[in-house]
């Protein structure tokens, strides 16, 4: 599907995108953002699923199974901890508004 040159274009543009997206991040978000990017590479799950779907021997099935297991851990775990951290970031305005509703 992807020819070599197109693949290199995608690689290059995606690399610039990643750099640009992160370049203005404040320090207070470094840890959640690292966790968030950790979650995003959980997309490896999709590849592991392909590998296991196409497994044609017991060895491939075993490795593929471990791969999907690990990838699912990466994706789900990454999401849960990132969400937990970001959920706590609130400004004082938001807090006061919540207080008044109670």
């Amino acid at each position, binding site marked *: 599907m992807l020819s070599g040159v197109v693949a290199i274009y995608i690689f290059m543009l995606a690399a610039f995108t990643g750099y640009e997206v992160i370049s203005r991040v404040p320090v207070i*978000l470094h840890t959640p953002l690292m966790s*968030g990017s*950790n*979650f995003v590479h959980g997309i*490896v799950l999709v590849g592991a699923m392909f590998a*296991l779907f196409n497994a044609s021997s017991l060895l491939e099935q075993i490795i593929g199974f*471990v791969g999907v297991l690990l990838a699912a851990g990466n994706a*789900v775990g990454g*999401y849960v*901890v990132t969400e937990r951290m970001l959920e706590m970031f609130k400004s004082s305005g938001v807090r006061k508004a919540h207080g008044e509703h109670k």
Partner: protein
Amino acid sequence: MRFIDASAAKWVIDTAYILVAFLFVTGLKRMSSPATARGGIFWAGLGMVIATLVTFLAPIAAPELSELAHTNMMLVIIAIGMGGALAWWSGKRVAMTDMPQMIALYNGMGGGAAAAISAVELYKTGTHGAAFSTLAVLGGLIGSLSFSGSGIAFGKLQGLIKRSFRFNGQQFINIIVLISTVVIGLLIAGGFATSVAAITTFFALALVLGITMTLPIGGADMPVVISLYNALTGLAVAFEGFVLDNAAMIIAGTVVGSAGTLLTQLMAKAMNRSLANVLFSGFGEGASTTSGPLTGSQKAIEASDAGVMMVFAQKIIIVPGYGLAVAQAQHKVWELAQLLQNRGVTVKFAIHPVAGRMPGHMNVLLAEAGVPYDLIADLEEINAEFETTDVSLVIGANDVVNPVARNDKSSPIYGMPILNADQSRNVIVIKRGQGQGFSGIDNGLFYLDNTRMLYGDAQSAVNQLIQAIKSVE
């Protein structure tokens, strides 16, 4: 079984992946600002769900169904269920202080998954192009490295591995392992060694390399290493994306690879360390450099006196460090801050980039306690304000407020940006005892005329301060 034909299934998958890539980039973009960060993880999460669901169409999109198709489908569902449930359970119950090692663990899993994909593709006997094999080998190498390296990082921060293993000639052994891994990798990529034994040896060596590279690195440097492995896993995922011809993996992996590299550099810079320095030298612990003896003595203060001093202050800056997190005192500190606010005192929190165990970790801990993020300032925002501050309250922080970093060229931390707590009118330091900081460097701040030491565990000391302030009429 086929409810849609192969070409339609392929179209659905490819189109969905474009949407997924868009959601990931949007999500990351939103995550880089506090106000939109929560929405960011939601969008990225939605992308992941869509990607996973459409991938179940993959067997339909394949040219022919293998006889193992049904078994494999079951295996996929079981593996996702098991891996997902375990990660959900562990992610929900991990304490905020343990977050860095948990990120290391999940990251290692991603690296392991990338290596597993590479292994499956390489073990498959068949016609491999040179480009295909090279990318599979590269992804396999980086993924394995990240897998075992992150495992060691987790073990160290979790306290499972207590000491750093260092011996003479260690770098030499690392280089030998690295060279042998690369040589076998080249042979596999070139199609000269395709036996199961050769491929297995390659992966075994790559895993060993991750372990031997990470073991000598000290605990203080671990955040940078974790961030580096995070970037590497992204890169491995991108390489496997090329192998599988999967655009979503290429884009997401590359974005994480470059974003992670930048983040690693930012962290290393905040710690005044170069990346090469972190990886190839053994600072981080036990570098016992004693600069010239500091003159003067440490002057102790009672909590009651400190409380009075704080109540009658106009402006207080609280400087929290890792000692605060260890004592789980962040909730108490927020209670103290609110008490002072009610008395009309302006309270701010000053966070050094490396306070806590990784940049931004202390912000997470304060946010957990309920401190609004607009009261929290980073180094560049707040350093000019110390001069107009009545009391700086330093809790469990040491090296990040050490004026030696500004004055003493012979000190190993010379040049590291510090919080200028020493410039405020009064400094109260809460500290367990008269010991030295993480780096083993004596702290000039503790000997200044305007500094008073309040000895004790952060939790109990802050508690005493709260009682003291409450008793001031």
